[in-house]
Every structure is written in structure tokens, then in C-alpha cells.
């Protein structure tokens, strides 16, 4: 056996390694010299400059996406003299090309031209299984420039191009019809001319001296990072040279801008008209590199151009750390347009020094200036303890996403402000968000609050800083007790009612009837009269709609009760969890959509979506037999449901029909027997797109929020211990298998629970 195992070819060993989980994969490198590099083999090749493109193409063709360790995902190609190409494949269709060159070639300047239009793509004989969507080009030198262009010209599907540390690169021309969406150029100090012939570019990241940018066709960037803190690349740069670029960034959502860029290039060209406004900017990253006296004015004048701004990050030269300012909702600064929506700050652990949003006071222009300055000073003191900014930058960006909470909070606030004096309301919202933020942030936030307290004296010298820290410790306890008071004292009751209020409010938004309530868990033997008499005390009942089991026609313990007034419905909701004939009632606001979903999960026919779900199929079913079953319908395709992990058939299929008539005939075949099983046929649920962009994810979360609020209501009835606090973020995203609703798992499904409650 010794022989057999040792004689296995590398390819087999590599495939064995590829089946291992990642941790074990690394372990195998310690078995023996032969195993050392199996997991991470580098293909070394030698050739001439002309061969490189073909070699890379072949390298890509061999790589298997499904089995990334089978073939080496690293290529080392030596060409010319002292020049090599290191290519490696990374996840998410990334290809990295590194040309580590000798220093002596570096001083030679060169130009790069990437043409990605269809006519120019050189088609090669290889058909790569790995489609490059992201390309990183690093350290392309004068010698390798032709190689780089010829490689890029074969990448038809390129969506993202990153060019880094290309010393000597003087002029860059990128031409792409439609695919290219992101362009990143970092640290190319000699770049003087950037010619963009792209129409779909959405994302531009640039760091380095400002080159002359020539966007040939008009396009709108949605994210632009223009980090020109090193100044213009040539001395005779005029404001009008920047006009073209200015137009492309006008409709940005996220913008990173240098102060000097705005002051010297943007401001002069827009100030006469006065109606040039960045309507879409939500996030502004401000590079504050002037030490001049009027530097705050520059920022302020820019902020005036951004009516939709939600977040502002400020940094100063030369470090990369960002200060994060995010003012509060209550009292808008006078300089901002009133529509400005602002968010409470959520801070990552360390490196961000907040420019504290003192929400409790109205700040004048002048005060804001003082404040910003003070914070910047303080930030500089703290810079020394900044480890890695980019990492937490991301966490910050992540933390910044959930916008919809704000709207919910708004509602709370409105409700509260009628009950409490405004100052207290302010405090409460603070504690509230504190609760929702994770623990790591908590500490930081208290500090912020502490800062608020200390803000009476805005000039923070470093000595005072240390004093402040002491103060902070003292202050730490304060918010906690406030929080405790909020939750232990009378706080709970109003909160609960508020919850129902918001519920009814949201249900109104959905077009639901606020006078209706859902009552579950009624004993089976109850009659309509019993229910009426039980709920009579709440108010006048106009209708009691009892639910029955479809098979037996017996009462299933659920009733929808319509009251004459909303107040009566609310009183009925207060009875949630009450005892009726030995069972605990579950009462919650009635949702119109719920009735359909709880009774039987049958999606409606969507026009143009002629796909049905066919369930309860026999294991031995074949496509032919299924086609025979639907012989009167025009079938375009059949897809069998497979288990994602094991690849096993799961007993259901999706069938696409050519027209809606076929769909309707197919639906009539529901419950017909096929292979000894009654087949279940219903309309398929259209695939919901995964939340990829920020916007859609926030919408998603909004939905999640809504359903949890109703879900928690349910759970209060079922078992009081499970309060809404147990509904974690994970749960919000989970979809119930039972009823298809978001916000609760299969086990907590209201449908299932009522079933369980009634049977016991």
C-alpha cells in the first residue's frame, strides 16, 4: 500500500487535498516535502514576451472554479530579462497580475491603453472556465506594458479594473463599451493623463496626484473617491480642466474629496451660478489637508451643496484615519437645509475619533466651526493609537447601513414627544440606540456622551484630555442608570403600547384594517357566540370570521374579529395571552396578507411568470414522465430541485410553461396522482434578488423590522419569556418555511404554534 499511495500522481493527491476542509488543507503541507506545496502549487513557466498573454489565457482555461485547488491557481512566468509575471486567481473571479520588476526600468515612462470594446477583443482558442471579472494590475513597468495590454484585451467580461503602483505610467486610456463598472487607480505617481472612454463606469477610486482626466462620453459615477491630497500632477492645472470630471461626480452618492480640490477647482467654476448642487450625496469623506484659518468655511460651504447628506467623515493629512461626524436628528444645524437627515453615530472600536454630534443644542455656524476644530485637534492626539484604519472603515460602513431603523425611531419619537418633555425624549432615543448597537460600540458611545457633557469647554488641550477621561469614567454610570430607569420603571408599559401603536400604524400603511384583530388559540369547541361574548367587553363587534379546517370543516381555533372602533380593537389586543377555556389566546393586529398565507401557502398567478412548483413527487420520477403528466401544456423547461450539498433530488420540480394557458391547465392537475402520489401543484414563488446593493438591503431590513415587531407580539402571547429582545438580527433575515414570512424561524411560526396550542 505504501507503493500505491505514494505512487498516486500529484493530480490525484491534489484532488484529495481539494476535498479537505481548509484547515486540514494547511496541515497537509507539513506531511512531507511532496505534500508541502500540493495545496498551493505554483506553475512556473519560461518564455518570451510574446508568449505571456497566451500563457495567462491557458492558465485561466485550466483553472476550475468548482475545484479551485485542483489546478494551480498561481502562475509564475518569466519573460525577457529579470522580468516576471506573477498571476494568481482569487475568489470572486479575481485575477491578480503582478510584475515585480527591477528598479532600473522604473524611470522609463510609458503609456497604457486598454480597449475592452467588443470589436477589439482578441478571441483566443481557449475557453476559460474562469471568467475574470476583477483584474488587479500591480507594478506594471515599461517593459511589461505591452504584455499587460495584450492580457487585458482578452478579458471580455471585465467589470472591475484595479491598477496599483505602476511607477512610470504616464498616460492611461481605458475604453470599454458597457461592462466596466469600477476603476481603481492607486499610487501611480507619474500618471498625468487619464482618458476614460467608458459609458457605464459607476465607481472610480483614485489616489495620487491629480491627473488631467478626460471623460469622453458622459456618464454618472455613483461612488467616487478622488483622493488628490498630493496636489495636481502639473503646475498649470486650471479649474476649467476639472469641469468634465465635476460633471461626472455631480450625481454621486458617495464622494471622497480633498479640501483643496473643492476650494481651487470646484468652487471657482460653480460659485457664479449658485445652482450647482450635489443632490445625491449621502456620504461625504472629506480630506482636510489645509491648515488654513478658513478651512472650516470650505467644508461648510460644500455641505451647503449637499442637501441629502447623511454621513460625513473627516480626515486630515497625512494619516488615513477618519473622523466621523454624524449629527443627531432633533435640532438641525442652521447651516444645513432642513431636509438633512442625520443619524446617530455608531462607532467601531477604536480608530475613529468622533466629532461628536451634540444633539442637545442648536449650533450656530461659528460653534460648529469651533467644535470641528476642537475635535480635529483631539483626533491628532489620538492618531498614535490608530492601528489600521481601513479595516474598521469597513466595519463602520457596515454599521452605517441600517437606515430604516431611523424611520421607525422617528415614529417612536413622534409618539414620545407628545408624552414627554423633549429633553427627556432625546435622552431616551440615545439609550435606545445604545441598546441596539452592539456591545463593542457601547463603550465608545458612552464616551461620546461623556464628550457631550464635557463639551462645555470646546478647546481640548491634551492635558484636559486626560482629565476628561477621568470624567468619562464617572459619566459611564450615568447613562446606565438612565437606561435602567427606562426599562425597569414605568418605561415598559408605554413602550409596549407604543409598539402596538406603531404596529397599527404600519398595518395602516399596508392598507390593513386597524379595527380587525387576529385571535388564535381559541378552544376547538367554541362557537361563534362564545367568541362574541368573550370579546364583547372590548367594544362592539361587527363581525367574527372563524377559520375552519379545510378537510373536516371543523373550527380550527382561529378567528378574525372586526370591531367597530380602533380603540376596541386595541383593548382586544391588550387581552393577548389571556385565558380562554384553559388555553392562552394569541391576539395580534390583523394583516390582510396573513390570512392568505396562513390558510394555505399558494402564491398568486403572476403575469408573465409561467412557472409552477410541482411537489410531492416520487423519487423515481423522470423528466419524460413529468412531461407526459403535463401533456396538454407547452413546457419550456423542467428543473428538478436538488439538495445543494448532496445533489440529491428533493422531490419537487419547477416547470416553466410557454404560455399562461398551459399554466392554468397545469394548476388544474393539482392533487392528481402520479406514481402513486398526489402531486401538489401551485404557482412558483419568483426568486427574490439577494440584497446586493446597499439600498435593497436596507429595504430588506425594513421588511424584517416590520415582521419582527409583529412577530414579537405573537411570541408575547405564546410564551412571555421570549420577548422581542430575543429576536436577533439573524432571525430577522430568516424566512419561515411554514408560511413564507420573514422575521421568524420555522419553529416560531404562528401557524404551527396555533396548531400545537389547539391540539394540546
Amino acid at each position, binding site marked *: 500500500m*505504501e507503493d*500505491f499511495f505514494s505512487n498516486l500522481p500529484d493530480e490525484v493527491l491534489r484532488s484529495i487535498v481539494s476535498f479537505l476542509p481548509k484547515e486540514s488543507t494547511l496541515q497537509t503541507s507539513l*506531511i512531507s516535502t511532496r505534500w508541502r506545496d500540493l495545496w498551493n502549487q505554483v506553475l512556473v513557466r519560461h518564455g518570451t514576451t510574446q508568449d505571456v498573454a497566451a500563457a495567462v489565457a491557458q492558465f485561466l482555461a485550466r483553472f476550475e472554479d468548482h475545484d479551485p485547488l485542483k489546478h494551480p491557481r498561481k502562475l509564475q512566468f518569466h519573460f525577457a530579462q529579470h522580468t516576471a509575471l506573477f498571476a*494568481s486567481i482569487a475568489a470572486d473571479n479575481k485575477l491578480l497580475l503582478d510584475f515585480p520588476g527591477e528598479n532600473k526600468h522604473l524611470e522609463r515612462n510609458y503609456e497604457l491603453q486598454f480597449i475592452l470594446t467588443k470589436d477589439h477583443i482578441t478571441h483566443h482558442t481557449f475557453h476559460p472556465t474562469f471568467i475574470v471579472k476583477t483584474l488587479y494590475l500591480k507594478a506594471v513597468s515599461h517593459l511589461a506594458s505591452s504584455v499587460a495590454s495584450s492580457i487585458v484585451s482578452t478579458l471580455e467580461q471585465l467589470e472591475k479594473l484595479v491598477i496599483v503602483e505602476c511607477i512610470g505610467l504616464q498616460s492611461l486610456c481605458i475604453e470599454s463599451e458597457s461592462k466596466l463598472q469600477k476603476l481603481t487607480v492607486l499610487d501611480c505617481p507619474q500618471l498625468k493623463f487619464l482618458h476614460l472612454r467608458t459609458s457605464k463606469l459607476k465607481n472610480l477610486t483614485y489616489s495620487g496626484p491629480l491627473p488631467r482626466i478626460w471623460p469622453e462620453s458622459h456618464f454618472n459615477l455613483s*461612488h467616487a473617491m478622488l483622493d488628490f491630497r498630493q496636489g495636481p500632477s502639473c503646475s498649470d492645472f486650471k479649474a476649467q480642466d476639472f469641469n468634465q470630471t465635476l460633471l461626472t461626480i455631480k450625481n454621486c452618492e458617495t464622494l471622497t474629496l480633498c479640501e483643496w480640490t473643492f476650494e481651487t477647482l470646484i468652487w471657482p467654476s460653480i460659485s457664479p451660478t449658485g445652482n450647482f448642487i450635489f443632490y445625491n450625496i449621502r456620504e461625504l469623506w472629506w480630506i482636510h489637508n489645509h491648515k488654513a484659518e478658513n478651512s472650516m468655511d470650505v467644508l461648510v460651504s460644500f455641505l451647503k451643496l449637499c442637501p441629502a447628506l447623511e454621513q460625513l467623515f473627516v480626515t486630515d493629512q497625512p494619516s488615513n484615519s477618519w473622523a466621523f461626524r454624524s449629527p443627531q436628528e432633533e435640532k438641525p444645524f442652521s447651516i444645513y437645509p432642513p431636509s438633512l437627515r442625520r443619524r446617530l453615530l455608531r462607532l467601531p472600536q477604536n480608530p475613529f475619533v468622533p466629532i461628536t454630534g451634540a444633539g442637545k443644542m442648536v449650533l450656530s455656524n461659528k460653534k460648529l466651526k469651533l467644535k470641528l476644530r476642537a475635535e480635529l485637534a483631539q483626533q491628532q492626539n489620538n492618531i498614535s493609537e490608530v492601528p489600521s484604519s481601513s479595516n474598521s472603515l469597513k466595519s463602520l460602513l457596515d454599521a452605517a447601513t441600517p437606515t430604516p431603523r431611523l424611520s421607525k425611531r422617528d415614529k417612536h419619537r413622534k409618539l414620545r414627544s407628545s408624552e414627554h418633555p423633549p429633553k427627556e425624549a432625546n435622552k431616551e432615543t440615545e439609550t435606545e440606540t445604545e441598546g441596539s448597537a452592539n456591545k463593542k460600540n457601547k463603550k465608545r458611545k458612552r464616551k461620546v456622551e461623556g464628550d457631550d457633557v464635557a463639551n462645555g469647554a470646546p478647546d481640548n488641550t491634551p492635558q484636559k484630555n486626560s482629565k476628561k477621561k477621568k470624567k468619562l469614567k464617572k459619566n459611564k454610570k450615568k447613562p446606565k442608570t438612565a437606561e435602567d430607569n427606562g426599562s425597569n420603571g414605568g418605561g415598559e408599559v408605554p413602550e409596549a403600547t407604543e409598539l402596538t401603536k406603531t404596529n397599527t400604524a404600519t398595518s395602516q400603511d399596508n392598507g390593513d384594517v386597524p379595527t380587525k384583530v387576529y385571535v388564535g388559540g381559541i378552544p376547538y369547541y367554541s362557537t361563534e357566540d362564545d367568541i362574541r361574548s368573550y370579546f364583547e367587553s372590548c367594544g362592539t363587534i361587527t363581525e367574527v370570521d372563524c377559520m375552519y379546517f379545510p378537510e373536516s370543516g371543523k373550527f380550527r381555533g382561529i378567528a378574525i374579529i372586526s370591531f367597530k372602533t380602533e380603540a376596541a380593537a386595541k383593548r382586544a389586543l391588550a387581552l393577548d395571552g389571556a385565558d380562554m377555556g384553559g388555553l392562552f389566546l394569541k391576539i395580534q393586529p390583523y394583516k390582510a396578507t396573513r390570512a392568505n398565507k396562513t390558510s394555505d401557502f399558494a402564491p398568486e398567478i403572476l403575469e408573465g411568470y409561467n412557472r409552477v412548483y410541482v411537489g410531492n413527487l416520487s423519487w423515481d420520477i423522470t423528466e419524460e414522465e413529468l412531461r407526459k403528466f403535463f401533456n396538454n401544456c407547452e413546457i419550456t423547461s423542467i428543473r428538478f430541485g*436538488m439538495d445543494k450539498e448532496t445533489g440529491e433530488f428533493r422531490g419537487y420540480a419547477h416547470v416553466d410553461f410557454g404560455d399562461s394557458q398551459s399554466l392554468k391547465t397545469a394548476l388544474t392537475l393539482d392533487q392528481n396522482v402520479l406514481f402513486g402520489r398526489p402531486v401538489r401543484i401551485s404557482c412558483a414563488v419568483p426568486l427574490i434578488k439577494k440584497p446586493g446593493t446597499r439600498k435593497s438591503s436596507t429595504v430588506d431590513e425594513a421588511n424584517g423590522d416590520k415582521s419582527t415587531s409583529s412577530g414579537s407580539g405573537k411570541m408575547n402571547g405564546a410564551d412571555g419569556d421570549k420577548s422581542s429582545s430575543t429576536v436577533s438580527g439573524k432571525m430577522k433575515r430568516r424566512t419561515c418555511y411554514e408560511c413564507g414570512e420573514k422575521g421568524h424561524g420555522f419553529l416560531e411560526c404562528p401557524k404551527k404554534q396555533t396548531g400545537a396550542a389547539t391540539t394540546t
Partner: protein
Amino acid sequence: MKMMKPYVWLQTSDDSIQQVEQEIAMFCPLICQEIIQKGMGSSKNCAICLPQQVSPAMLSLILDYCRFHQVPGRSNKERKSYDEKFVRIDTERLCELTSAADSLQLKPLVDLTSRALARIIEGKTPEEIRDIFHLPDDLTENVEVEEEHVDDRSVDDLLSFINGNDGGKLNILTILIFVFT
């Protein structure tokens, strides 16, 4: 009258010759190639010479495998459970089988056995793996330590590869540091 099933003649490593149904033998790409391209195996005299690694015992195992999978209309579940039982043999034979299957270019079986071998290796220390497969320990202690150090970078590389997180904005820098070093 029914046609007699075509047979092919196969010669294993110990020079024994056996007769196998053609459609089953054709399941192995190597045999298929021999039959189609060279017209071999039609009689006992021009039997197909199988590679060294294929012993008669292994051949019969492989043919069993082919026989099962060659039948159309089996459900995935059946195939799966058959495969699972099929590789429930001792490690020694498993290695032999892998090597034989590889020599016959029978890729599905190679995958199956590799997966089984991977399951054996999984979670074990290098020391244990060496014991199981009687592999020589040609990495001395010193080298090993050094090796670990050298591999540090590769671990990062692998991690960044696994995570493959799409660095937004400034994160690109970190990723680059990871990958390009």
C-alpha cells in the same frame, strides 16, 4: 433471437485474461479509447493490456462500480448510497483502488475515492497521516519550524482567497497587501 452481448477481453497486471461485457468496460475512458481507436479487445489474442496498477481484484471492483452506474434510470439517492457503501473498504485497498481508477482514467471513481481518502486524512495531524499511509518524514524538525514560518504569508494568502471579500474603497489596499506580498 436476441443478439449476444458483445464482450471485450482484458488483460490484467498478472497476465490473466478475462471477458467483460463491452458496454460496462466502455465506461472506462482508457478501455473505450483502446477499443475505438485501436480496435483492440475483440478476441482473446488481442486483449487490451491494462495498466500495471490494475490487479484482477481491483478490476472486478471497478467493473462492479461500472455495472451499477451504467444502468440508466437510477436515482441520485441510490447512486449516492451505493457509492458510499462502495468505498467502505480498508485504507490499503482504497489506495489501490484510487491508483487503479486513475490509471483507467475513470474520473468519477477517482473523485469518489479521493473524497474517501480525504475523509480519512481530515482532522488528523501530519504525524498521524504519515503513520496511516507509511509516508516518509523527510521534513526534519528544523525544516518544519522554518517551513511554518515561510508559510505564514501563504496562510494569509489562502485566507484572503477563501474569504475573497470584496474590498470597498480603501480596503483594496489591505487586500493588495495580503495578496501581492
